[in-house]
C-alpha cells in the first residue's frame, strides 16, 4: 500500500488555490492564545475561530461561501505571518483584506469602526456604538462583538464595559486579558 505522501498532498492543495478553484481556503495557526482556525476567500480573511471543531467550521463555511472548502497553507500564509509578528510584539496593525460580504449592514459598519480602534487602546461598547452612528445601540454592539467573525484581526478584545470591566469575550476572558496585556493596555 502506497499512501499519499505529504508532498503530493501539499502539491494538490497548493495547485487548487493557485488555480483559483477554492471558495474557501483554511489552515490552523498556532499562537500563544491557542490554535486558531483561519479561513479566507479570494476576497479576504473570512473566519478566525478559537477552539474550533473543524468539522463544524467546514460545514458553516460551505453553507456561507460555497462547497469548495479545502485546507491549503499558501492562501493563509500572510495571515499566519502577521499573527506571528503581532504575538511577537512586532506588529501593531494588520494589513490584511477581510471578507465581510455576508455580514448585515449594521454589523459591517460596527466591525469597520472596530478595525480603527488602535493597538493598546480600549473603547467602551457605548463609545463604539456612537462611532457607528447608533449611540444607543451598546447592547447590539456587544452582540456584534460576541459574533465577530475575525477576532484579534478585528480587535473586539479592545472593547470593554463603561465601568472599566472586561465584560466578555467570545474566546474566553483569559484570552481578552492576555491580548490586552500583550498590547500594554493592561498591567
Amino acid at each position, binding site marked *: 500500500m502506497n499512501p499519499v505522501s505529504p508532498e503530493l498532498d501539499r*502539491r494538490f492543495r497548493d495547485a487548487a488555490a493557485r488555480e483559483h478553484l477554492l471558495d474557501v481556503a483554511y489552515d490552523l495557526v498556532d499562537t500563544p492564545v491557542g490554535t486558531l482556525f483561519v479561513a479566507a476567500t479570494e476576497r479576504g480573511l473570512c473566519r478566525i475561530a478559537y477552539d474550533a471543531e473543524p468539522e463544524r467550521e467546514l460545514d458553516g463555511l460551505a453553507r456561507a461561501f460555497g*462547497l469548495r472548502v479545502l485546507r491549503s497553507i499558501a492562501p493563509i500564509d500572510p495571515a499566519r505571518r502577521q499573527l506571528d509578528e503581532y504575538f511577537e510584539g512586532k506588529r501593531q496593525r494588520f494589513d490584511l483584506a477581510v471578507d465581510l460580504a455576508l455580514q448585515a449592514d449594521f454589523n459591517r459598519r460596527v466591525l469597520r469602526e472596530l478595525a480603527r480602534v488602535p493597538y493598546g487602546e480600549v473603547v467602551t461598547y457605548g463609545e463604539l456604538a456612537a462611532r457607528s452612528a447608533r449611540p444607543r445601540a451598546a447592547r447590539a454592539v456587544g452582540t456584534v462583538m460576541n459574533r465577530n467573525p475575525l477576532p484579534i484581526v478585528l480587535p473586539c478584545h479592545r472593547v470593554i464595559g463603561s465601568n472599566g470591566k472586561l465584560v466578555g469575550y467570545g474566546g474566553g476572558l483569559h484570552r481578552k486579558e492576555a491580548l490586552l496585556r500583550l498590547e500594554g493596555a493592561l498591567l
Partner: protein
Amino acid sequence: MTLPPFERFYDEHREEIYAFLVRRLGRDRAEDAFQETFLRALRAYSKLRHGEHLRAWAYTIASRIAIDEHRRPRADAELPELSTLDGRPAFAQLEHLADELPPTERAAVVLRYGYDLDYGEIGAALGSNATAARQAASAGIRRLRRKEGQ
C-alpha cells in the same frame, strides 16, 4: 444526500484513488494523475446536484485520467494494456450506450467493461461489494441487450 465540503470528499477518497492510480499507471505517473483527478473534481464539484455515488464519480474521473495518461507515450514506464476493439478506447465506445441506464448499473457497466476494473474495485467504488457490483453490471448489460433488441 447533500454534498459535503470538498475537504471531506478529498479526505475520504484520496487514499483509494491514489492506490487505484498506482495500480494503473505505476507510482511515478500516478502522482500527476492524482493531482489532475482532484483538480478536475474540484472544477466540477459545485455543479453536482447531490452527494450520491461520489465514490464512483471519483473513480470515473481517475479512470479517464488514467486512460489519457496511458495514451501519452512515455518510454520509461511499463503500461497495463487496455482492451480496445476498433482502435477507440473501450470506455469511449461504451459511455454513450450506457447513458440511459440507472446510475448504479451505468457506473458498474462503464467501470467493468470500459475501464476494466475488477468487481472488488467496482464494489469499493460504489460503496457496496463485489457481488453487488457483479449483479449491477449484469443487470445493466441485460438492459442494454433488451434495448438493442427493440
